[in-house]
């Protein structure tokens, strides 16, 4: 009897699923009709709520949904509503590939993506499909329109952030060091080697370290899941670094910073933006004092334009989550949604919402476009998808984020910026 009930339930689910395949399949004439009547624009979103980067991915996913509500409440795409298809893919590449195909089947006009691994794995496919793919991966590899024209994001890329962070430390902290002028500063990187996200800016940051005259030590492999990193800290101690760059997400960065503090490593820390948020202070406590990092936009609740809306929609759509638990990730999600919104509006005004039009008439017409949120002014050109060259570097002081310096990488190394640094 039990097995009969099981078989019945399973069959019911399967039949519904098969019906859904048919229902959301490609029926050109029906779709055309739907376009006219419903005036809905489909957008897909891939998020990580359960995988290796879920420590930062959950808040980002909430932010995406809230931002889309805001867009729809404020006129949508010139009157058309956005319908969001949001899926958790658990940071698994095969899952991301099939979900992307599902978005295509659902006639999504653009995709809000997540991790570097899957974004880079999908990059040739989105180029072939001409699908604008606005990701939470800010990998420098995605900024060269010759290679990845349809990969976009609102923030300064990891490589630029890393160059700016190490430069800020070199400018501000190193001159105060007792050994300043006596020897070269020592630097090493701590990140998960296996993760394309973590290793994306390694080449750039080492290049910058060489440019500034650092001694570079051996990299330390720290898992994204790490909760104990003492062996890596002991490995670092042999080199006696003055500065450590952390490329992981918040949870493992907090573990590393904490262990460095308890084992007396004595180095300063700079952190990539996905490891630098409000939770770092909570998780690492005292050990987080003095940690520096590149934040690509304002922290949640900061006094910057548009933040009132971010907070309002967080309260409205996720009242169960206390505001003090919300993170900069929400702001980042809003950043990506807001540039997509603007691009869709601009493309829609030309009467063409194809991927190519969204890119050419939307994104690539943005010049010093201000989305607020403490983010850089957005610039996309047909030859360069790096939004800006100025990176605000924050430090943690008395348990709070304080802006340390804004590093203008673009002006300081203008020739290298223009001729060498694009796309890595």
């Amino acid at each position: 009897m039990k097995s009969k009930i099981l078989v019945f339930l399973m069959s019911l689910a399967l039949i519904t699923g098969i019906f859904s395949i048919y229902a959301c399949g490609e029926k050109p004439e029906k779709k055309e009709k739907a376009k006219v009547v419903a005036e809905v624009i489909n957008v897909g979103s891939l998020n990580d709520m359960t995988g290796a980067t879920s420590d930062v991915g959950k808040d980002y996913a909430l932010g995406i949904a809230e931002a889309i509500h805001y867009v729809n409440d404020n006129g949508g795409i010139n009157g058309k509503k956005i319908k969001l298809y949001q899926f958790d893919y658990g940071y698994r590449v095969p899952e991301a590939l099939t979900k992307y195909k599902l978005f295509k089947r659902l006639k999504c006009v653009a995709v809000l993506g997540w991790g570097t691994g899957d974004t880079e794995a999908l990059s040739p496919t989105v180029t072939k499909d001409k699908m604008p793919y606005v990701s939470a991966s800010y990998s420098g590899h995605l900024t060269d329109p010759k290679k990845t024209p349809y990969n976009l994001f609102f923030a300064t890329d990891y490589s630029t952030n890393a160059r700016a962070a190490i430069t800020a430390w070199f400018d501000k902290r190193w001159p105060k060091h007792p050994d300043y002028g006596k020897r070269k500063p020592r630097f090493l990187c701590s990140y998960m080697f296996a993760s394309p996200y973590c290793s994306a800016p390694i080449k750039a940051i080492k290049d910058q370290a060489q440019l500034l005259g650092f001694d570079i030590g051996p990299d330390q492999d720290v898992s994204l899941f790490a909760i104990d990193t003492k062996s890596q800290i002991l490995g670092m101690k042999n080199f006696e670094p003055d500065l450590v760059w952390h490329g992981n997400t918040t949870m493992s960065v907090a573990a590393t910073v904490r262990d460095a503090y308890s084992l007396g490593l004595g180095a300063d820390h700079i952190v990539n933006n996905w490891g630098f948020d409000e939770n770092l202070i909570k998780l690492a406590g005292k050990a987080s004092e003095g940690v520096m990092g590149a934040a690509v936009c304002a922290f949640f609740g900061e006094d910057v334009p548009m933040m009132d809306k971010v907070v309002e929609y967080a309260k409205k759509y996720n009242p169960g989550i206390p505001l003090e638990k919300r993170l900069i990730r929400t702001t980042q999600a809003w950043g990506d949604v807001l540039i997509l919104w603007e691009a869709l509006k601009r493309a829609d005004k030309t009467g063409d919402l194809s991927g190519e039009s969204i890119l050419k008439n939307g994104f690539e017409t943005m010049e010093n476009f201000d989305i607020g949120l403490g983010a850089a002014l957005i610039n996309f050109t047909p030859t360069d998808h790096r939004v800006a060259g100025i990176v605000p570097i924050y430090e943690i002081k008395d348990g709070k984020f304080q802006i340390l310096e804004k590093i203008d990488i673009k002006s300081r190394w203008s020739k290298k910026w223009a001729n060498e640094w694009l796309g890595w």
Partner: protein
Amino acid sequence: MSTTFLPCGDYHQNYKQEHAWWQTKFIEAKMILLLIVLFVIIPLVADSYVLSILNLVGYTILGALGVQLLIGFCGQITLGHAAFIAVGAYTSTLLILEFPWPKFMIDWGVAYPISVLVAGIAAGIWSVFFGLPSARVKGFYLILTTMAAQFITVDFIITQYVSQIGGRGQAFSLPPGTIKIGPWVIDSDLKVYFMMLILLIVCVIGVVNLLRSRVGRAWIAIRDNDISAEVMGINVVKYKLLAFYVSGFIGGIAGAFWISNLAAISPEHFPWFWSLWLVGVILIGGIGSIHGTIFGAIFMVVVMELLQLAVMPFADIYPKLLMDFLFIKEAAFGLAICLFLMFEPNGLAYRWWQIKNYFNLWPFSY
């Protein structure tokens, strides 16, 4: 004894008939129909999304086939199979990207097919290394030694050394057009699908034939009781290692196939969870059954995807349903294994056998 029901009056007269693949005209017709569905109808009606799901099913079957061979037919429990798939994927990728192929070989599109074969051999040999402890240990201890394959291969060797080849330091990019078989550039889901079908059919036929041979009988004897097998004169260590080799070989083929579906590979593509997932596939499909492997893979991929599509119409009422589906999927994976172990310990293959029997014996199935 054959498990095929023969029409009244038909009987086998020799071993050839007994072991024939398709024993009756009716079975032959069914199989031809299946091939027509797979090679003609599906490519005609399926869109890119459906094909991508089917390609994932094929990848899962190829991966699980090796696990089935080891666990289901040779009794050697493994939880490190993702490592051998990774070896296959990286061997094939490196051969394509780094090996100095003569130009005519690239033009003729033979580089990738050769790399697939070499990937299988490399993964097979690598698998034998991690099979060596099986000469001494079994059960839980063997699980731990096979798990070591994941950490040593993926987390250490591939991440720290192989990924650095060519100064990459991260993902290996496979630009479109890199994967070519003869005159065909494998650049669409449909071409990947055909390649998957052919590889799958070759591997399934290979494994089934091996199982019908002396080697297969030796494996089954070892699975049932290794001491008895040894007493009967079977070289247990040799056959165990052979099982690891064949299992790794198929895993390598799976990895080499999978790169045709990707534009870049990184160690992240081969997590330890995938090994566990493959064991789940054979548990649900049925241990010790080749078609159980296929049913298991279909269940784990297609059914989960259909369930997801089934909840999509309700997403307008409760939007979080889409987002939370992976939670449901993970929970369903665990629950499915529990339920199958309790109510259907022989897996879907047994249920299939029962259904077949019911119709074969109908209307006198009592």
